[in-house]
């Protein structure tokens, strides 16, 4: 085994050290920003370096079986042999690179973005902690260890969404995210219990080895397990019906949205499905559910993204939609394809978020300078910004083209891969054609709303306001530099998994073969004929251009008014603006009834009323009441006493006779 692979523990530990150091700083030296920066960013860069080393070690034999490193025995009870162990294989290697790489860039960006925030050390502490947990998640060698990271990242997202906790809505958003994730985690737990019942183990290697011998293909057990797992994924990766937390999560600082709610954490679900591809491959029904959910989410979220004015909200729904694509991919068995889209998405979506971040940063500074309290995230307050921040504009255009699927850009290849795989499944079952259509439409909408975002933000007249205009300016290099790197990724990220019709195609797929070979037994890869592929490529290209051009033609940035004098929307637009009222429906259906039931029925009526008053105190009162009766009977009149005496006598004599 190449030695450097063994350094994987270092990758995990470094961010944790950063967390401890910065956490300490936040209490003792909140002002020492340079030290914090050094530690916070340093550990990430170091972790990235270590990760590179690990992957390099792995690269010596790309078909090696997974390396499992056991550190200590965690919960050994009876047949349960649970240890804290990390697993390095091709899949986790890719994730490792994404997490540490993108993570490092976003840390750098944050240095500029959070510069003036009083919570600077705390911010970096949380961010480092997040990376730590994310690494545990992707490197964990068993479901429970993965679960540690799984909930850990949830915690960090909770902390970072509510980073500016003094504003109730932020705290609410954080709580909402955590609880919704918990609903998913419930599924994850159930899945683990089922797996343990079935296989008697929880470590990936053993479970996947035993799976074929343990489960009947398409059997009830395996289906149940995978569905439960997918519930977890839906929670973590914001799929229908548990997606509503993600848009609210934008309450956190923008780099956080980029790192957690676009690039890494939210993709954990996809990773989990890919990781347990064997199980899903053995449960076709669940796979279809996954794919269908993905497609539906992709389309549904895209529709909402069409009418959002908050720039981050647009990106948020776009993220949900893109995650839908990834699930569509892994759902149809294109595990490599799904992960591929995950990687490319990590690049361009992070880029978009960070770009919007610097836009917001600029507006914020402007409004701050003039002490006005406009919404720095509302696109209606932007417009024509390319004149003030050319770098950002250009870079974001690159990302937009990528996500819109313009040929040559990374997003094109990954999205096309997913759609092609879906189409290919079509001859197993027609439903996949339908899913493909959904995906295609979603792609169209994607192109449309992304263009819309760009137009309203960077083109047309500026709507920020007279006094603010002079203050609008490009962000500092520390923020733009990461964008450049990400832009490179967005452009040429596609090469790692080119379509089969191109030379050197499917590198990632080959890379993943050791991971996915088992599943291919049940879900063999179907290769489309070259013509079909070319056709699909053509359609995808067409869709992209149609979307972009349509937006360019239809939308007139000139007619938009700034947010404060903007007219009230109506009709379908209003519905879209209000995200199909899903939040309202949920709260009316689940949240408020539960609270009402708990407060009035369970607590006030049943607990306090029935049990405590009626039964507990009631019995006491009854006893006392009898006591008062008894002492009322004690009238003090001898005649009465004698009467009682004699009656007692009669009864007693009756009994003895």
């Amino acid at each position, binding site marked *: 085994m190449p030695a450097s692979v063994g350094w994987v523990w270092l990758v995990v530990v470094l961010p944790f050290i950063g967390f401890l150091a910065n956490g300490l700083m936040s209490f003792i030296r909140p002002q020492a920003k340079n030290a914090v920066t050094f530690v916070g960013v340093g550990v990430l860069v170091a972790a990235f370096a270590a990760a590179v080393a690990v992957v390099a070690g792995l690269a010596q034999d790309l078909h090696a079986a997974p390396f499992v490193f056991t550190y200590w025995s965690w919960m050994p009870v009876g047949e349960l042999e649970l240890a804290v162990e990390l697993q390095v294989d091709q899949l986790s290697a890719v994730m490792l690179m994404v997490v540490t790489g993108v993570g490092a860039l976003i840390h750098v960006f944050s240095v500029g973005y959070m510069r003036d925030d009083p919570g600077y050390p705390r911010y970096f502490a949380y961010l480092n902690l997040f990376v730590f947990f994310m690494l545990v998640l992707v490197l964990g060698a068993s479901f429970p260890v993965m679960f540690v990271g799984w909930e850990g990242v949830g915690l960090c997202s909770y902390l970072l969404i509510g980073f500016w906790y003094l504003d109730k809505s932020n705290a609410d958003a954080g709580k909402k995210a955590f609880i919704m994730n918990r609903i998913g985690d419930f599924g994850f737990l159930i899945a683990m219990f089922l797996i343990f019942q079935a296989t008697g183990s929880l470590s990936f290697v053993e479970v996947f080895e035993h799976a074929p011998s343990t489960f009947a293909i398409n059997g009830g057990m395996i289906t149940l397990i995978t569905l439960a797992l997918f519930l977890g994924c839906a929670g973590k990766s914001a799929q229908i019906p548990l997606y509503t937390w993600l848009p609210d999560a934008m309450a956190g600082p923008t780099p956080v949205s980029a790192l957690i709610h676009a690039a890494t954490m939210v993709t954990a679900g996809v990773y989990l499905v890919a990781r347990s591809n064997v199980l899903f491959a053995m449960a076709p029904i669940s796979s279809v559910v996954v794919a269908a959910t993905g497609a539906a989410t992709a389309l549904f979220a895209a529709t909402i993204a069409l009418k959002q004015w908050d720039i981050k909200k647009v990106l948020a729904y776009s993220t949900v939609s893109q995650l839908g694509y990834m699930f569509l991919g892994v759902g149809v068995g294109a595990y490599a394809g799904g992960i591929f889209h995950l990687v490319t998405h990590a690049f361009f979506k992070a880029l978009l978020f960070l770009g919007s971040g610097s836009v917001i940063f600029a507006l914020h500074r402007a409004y701050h300078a003039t002490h006005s309290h406009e919404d720095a995230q509302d696109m209606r307050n932007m417009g024509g910004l390319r004149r003030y921040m050319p770098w950002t504009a250009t870079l974001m255009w690159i990302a937009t083209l990528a996500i819109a699927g313009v040929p040559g850009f990374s997003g094109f290849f990954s999205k096309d891969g997913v759609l092609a795989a879906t189409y290919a499944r079509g001859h197993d079952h027609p439903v996949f054609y339908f899913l493909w259509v959904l995906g295609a439409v979603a792609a169209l909408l994607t192109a449309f709303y992304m263009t819309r975002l760009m137009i309203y933000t960077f083109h047309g007249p500026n709507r920020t306001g007279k006094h603010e205009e002079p203050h609008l300016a490009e962000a500092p290099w520390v923020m733009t530099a990461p964008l450049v790197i990400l832009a490179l990724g967005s452009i040429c990220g596609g090469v790692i998994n080119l379509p089969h019709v191109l030379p050197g195609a499917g590198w990632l797929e080959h890379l993943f073969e050791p991971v996915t070979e088992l599943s291919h037994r049940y879900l063999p890869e179907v290769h489309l004929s070259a013509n079909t592929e070319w056709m699909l490529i053509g359609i995808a290209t067409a869709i992209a251009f149609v979307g972009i051009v349509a937006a360019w033609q239809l939308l007139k940035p000139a007619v938009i008014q700034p947010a404060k004098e903007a007219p009230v929307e109506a009709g379908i637009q209003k519905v879209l603006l209000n995200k199909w009222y899903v939040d309202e429906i949920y709260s009316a259906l689940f949240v408020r009834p539960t609270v009402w039931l708990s407060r009035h029925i369970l607590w006030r009526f049943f607990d306090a009323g029935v049990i405590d008053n009626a039964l507990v105190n009631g019995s006491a009162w009854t006893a006392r009441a009898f006591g008062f009766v008894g002492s009322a009977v004690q009238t003090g009149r001898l*005649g009465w006493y004698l*009467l009682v005496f*004699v*009656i007692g*006598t*009669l009864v007693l*004599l*009756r009994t003895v*006779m």
Partner: protein
Amino acid sequence: MEVISFWVFSGIAIISALLCITRKSAVVSALWLVLTLFSIAALFVILDAHFIGVIQVLVYAGAIMVLFLFVIMLLNLGRGGPTDLPGWLGHAVTLGIGIVLAVELWAVTRIVPATEIRLPAGTLDRVNEQEGAVAMISGPLFREYLIPFEITSVLLLAAIIGAVVLAKRRL
């Protein structure tokens, strides 16, 4: 002859007892009680307890009832103030209870002591003739029943002390 007299005296006893408990005036009640006691004394004699009969007359009808009357006079309850009898309900309840109790106690009259423990008929008469009415009592009283006899003396002492303590004028 004895049987008849038994029934006669029993009748007297019962009737006068009834009157005793129903007369309004305490004095009258007391006098009726005296009559009851007398007839009970007579019954004692009929039942071969001559000495006891005599004592009954002396102690009860004589001493104790006199004491009662004395107290009644002392507290001058002679001419009754308001009656101490309850209303019809009280009477009814009392009557009911009395009857039930009588019925329950009546049961014992069906029982005859086991023959093993019964003396041959007329034993007491014979003892009476041999030892005389007094010796027949005094004998066992000062032999087997010495201890109870002594206790009685202490009892009476206690009673005297008590009566004195409670009744003496000086506080």
